[in-house]
């Protein structure tokens, strides 16, 4: 994705802003679920997985997914402190968090099996599935690989034997 009005680096900004927006909705979801007097979940079940009396397993999955997201957010904020390699490894946890969240939604979502919500879930899973398969088939494509290699060849100085 790039053009004179949309240079490539803005795509990474889009990635960050979309992620921040989902955080807002996730926070809304957790807070409203906890304060809802109907289920009376309590804050402990939002923090300790599988501690809820109510749909213990399915809710626990949601807690785990949210905590993985929290780890990703915290390490992103502390990236300068923990180093790039550690940050990157933890960022891959997104791939664990998302499917766990989807299963959590199917297992305990109030509207999980209503037509509109199920269709939405299927569409999301199909989109992510397609992206993952595409990535596996096409292989990782690093747009910086070529310029990086050319820069490196310019600053490489093998010591003389």
């Amino acid at each position: 994705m790039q053009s004179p009005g949309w240079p490539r680096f803005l795509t990474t900004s889009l990635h960050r802003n979309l992620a921040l927006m989902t955080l807002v909705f996730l926070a809304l979801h957790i807070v409203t679920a906890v304060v809802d007097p109907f289920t009376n979940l309590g804050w402990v079940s939002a923090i300790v997985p599988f501690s809820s009396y109510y749909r213990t397993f399915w809710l626990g999955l949601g807690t785990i997914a949210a905590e993985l997201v929290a780890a990703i957010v915290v390490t992103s904020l502390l990236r300068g402190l923990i180093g790039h390699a550690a940050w990157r490894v933890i960022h891959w946890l997104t791939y664990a968090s998302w499917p766990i969240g989807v299963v959590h939604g199917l297992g305990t979502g109030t509207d999980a099996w209503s037509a509109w919500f199920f269709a939405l879930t299927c569409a999301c899973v199909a989109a992510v599935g397609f992206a993952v398969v595409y990535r596996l088939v096409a292989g990782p494509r690093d747009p910086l690989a070529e310029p990086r290699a050319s820069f490196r060849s310019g600053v490489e100085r093998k010591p003389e034997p």
Partner: protein
Amino acid sequence: MSRLRLLAGPDLSLGAERLHAQVERLGPLPVAGAALIDTLEASGLAGRGGASFPVARKWRSLAHHSGGAVVVANGAEGEPQSLKDRVLMSTRPHLVLDGALLAARALKASQIVLYVGEEHRAAWTAMAGALAERPEPELHRARLVAAPHRYVAGESSAAVHLLDAAIASPTTKPPEPHAAGVGGAPTLVQNVETLAHIALIARHGAGWFRSAGRRGGAGTVLITVAGAVPSPGVVEIEAGTTVREVLELAGGTDPAARAVLIGGYFGSWVDFATALELPLEAAALREHGLGLGCGVVGVISSRGCGVCETARIIRYLAGESSAQCGPCFFGLRALADACGRIAERGSNPDDLARLNRWARDVRGRGACRHPDGAVMFLQSALQTFAPEFSSHPAHWRAHATGRGVA
């Protein structure tokens, strides 16, 4: 030419001062161990590579290791407008070696590396010749290593990366070089001018160092005056000397000059009238949101074009990205494209808005400070040359004259 302390002594055209001549002039290298760190703290000496970081604080962060530290004398000088490091190395190499040796002894380092820009031929020859003259065993084992001719090669982690993996590109921090640098050992990467000051402070003391300096500045500074002045080159001034006084040393000021670039390509453009009264001293400049950087003062005349010159420099900086971080590589390129369109085809509101918006988006998004430095430079240009940016004709003047003005 003004030559107060570092450049005092025989005429610079005579080339490198020999060891016996320096010993005759300044006395032998004094014995100074870890106590030198206190002296440096009292002197208030700050690094002269660009970041103006307090030297004593940097040394203390290395002082408590278990041995085997590395001292890198940084003479890469990749800044295109700067000449002061190569002038110093090619005329007073023994001051640099003295400073490196004092650092190695104070920090109990086991290795000294002289990291010299490969295209600085005279500096290279002078440093190699000076090394051969020295009797100290630490300097016998010292390595003279070529810094590739690229802007980022002088960044401290790039120097460490070259020594470790033969590639002079910056690496992500942490770890900082002072924590784990060359071969994992704590590493001091210190600019050669800073080391030369240390050689004199060890001889004459902190009080002597501070006896030079005006308007709150301490010691002397090497400044490279570039651009539209009668005699560009390196001058040594008391810290705190104003830009006006420095330009007078370089042959006088052109009252019609447009602006001054202070601190080099990671520095800032300042309107000429404002710049004249600025004291060249890190703390005072910080109050104005500026930095001394590597000590470049570049003048653009009334006939030069700030927009075209800025477009040329930002294009250069974009090309100097090591392409490790997307926002730096793609962001600087996009900024250079937008700035180039204004320079080449004339001002337009779309590109102006993009420059302002993207400059904010790129800042702080790289493993090193390369994108930040480039963007701060661009933002200073947008501010100082605001009238030119909003009404720029399609002329691309820097290209037409074939060379930069600042």
